[in-house]
């Protein structure tokens, strides 16, 4: 990679498809005048975005192929297909769901974790911290031969 090259985000490139002049005003941080209609539309969009995120990570909205139950916080931290998430799912399915207290824990966890996962999605610092905690648990599960 050429060192002089700057990292550009997908939304920055997409902005060129709308209006290059607007994209450059934003890049140079020119003062904006956003009217109430646009503000309301942005707010609506953000709310829908958060709702959709909660629905997909909780499994409330899923294609038929997405059969395995979600592991919300692990999905938010590692990604839905990461080996760490798979290991935590195995632990849930093979150990926790086998006993009464484990099932109770999973039931409570399913209630409280979707909003936590949604909150983590916008906080990389907190996500790193949770990841470190979960790494310890995943390591212990690995040592225990587990699951």
């Amino acid at each position, binding site marked *: 990679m050429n060192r002089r090259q700057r990292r550009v985000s997908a939304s920055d490139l997409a902005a060129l498809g709308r209006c290059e002049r607007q994209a450059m005003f934003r890049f140079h941080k020119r003062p904006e005048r956003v009217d109430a209609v646009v503000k309301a539309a942005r707010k609506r969009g953000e709310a829908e975005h958060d709702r959709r995120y909660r629905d997909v990570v909780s499994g409330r909205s899923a294609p038929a192929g997405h059969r395995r139950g979600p592991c919300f916080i692990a999905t938010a931290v590692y*990604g839905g297909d990461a080996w760490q998430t798979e290991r935590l799912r195995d632990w849930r399915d093979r150990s926790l769901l086998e006993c009464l207290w484990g099932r109770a824990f999973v039931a409570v966890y399913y209630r409280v974790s979707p909003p936590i996962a949604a909150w983590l999605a916008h906080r990389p610092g907190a996500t790193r911290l949770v990841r470190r905690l979960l790494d310890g648990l995943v390591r212990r599960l690995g040592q225990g031969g587990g699951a």
Partner: protein
Amino acid sequence: MNGEWLLSLLLGLVVKALSSPVFLVCFAVGIAVWEILRRRPRRQQGDYPAELARAKLVMSEQDILADVPIPLAGRPDEVYRQSSGHLVPVETKTRNRAKVHREDLIQLSVYRVLLQRAKHNGLPGRPGRPVAGYGFVRIVTPSGVRWRRVVLMSEAEVVQLYERRIALESGRVCPTVAKHPALCQRCAYRDTCGPGRPG
């Protein structure tokens, strides 16, 4: 007279029932069960396009970085893996009409390059992993959710756009204005935007 007697009898029974611990426990359990059943999440499997009907969600709202062929970053709303192993990016938009814009096409095309080229980022496999030649824009309109399939741009076209962006930022080329005057009507920079506006 009879009515009053009946009412006092009923009230007496209610008070007696309310003071019984068995009744209170049953009532509490009943409320808890009703609440759990009411809030139980229901799967919505019917609202996906055929291409994603058997796909699995592999990523949601996660940052992806790639340095090759150009340094890019992105956070796709959703990425699904089809049974064939191909990844499909999905972006959700809230609009009044179910219309796909050019910016959606660019955004999904950048995600495609990122998914192909990212080193790991929680993605399955190694760089060079298969990514479908299309993505989906999931548009939430007042009349419901519509899925729009979009054929994506090639990697070379994304690189061209990147170079255009860098040239614009450095001032080597002049930015063009929006093609449709309607876009200018609610633009946050309409006061500072000079001549050259369409319409």
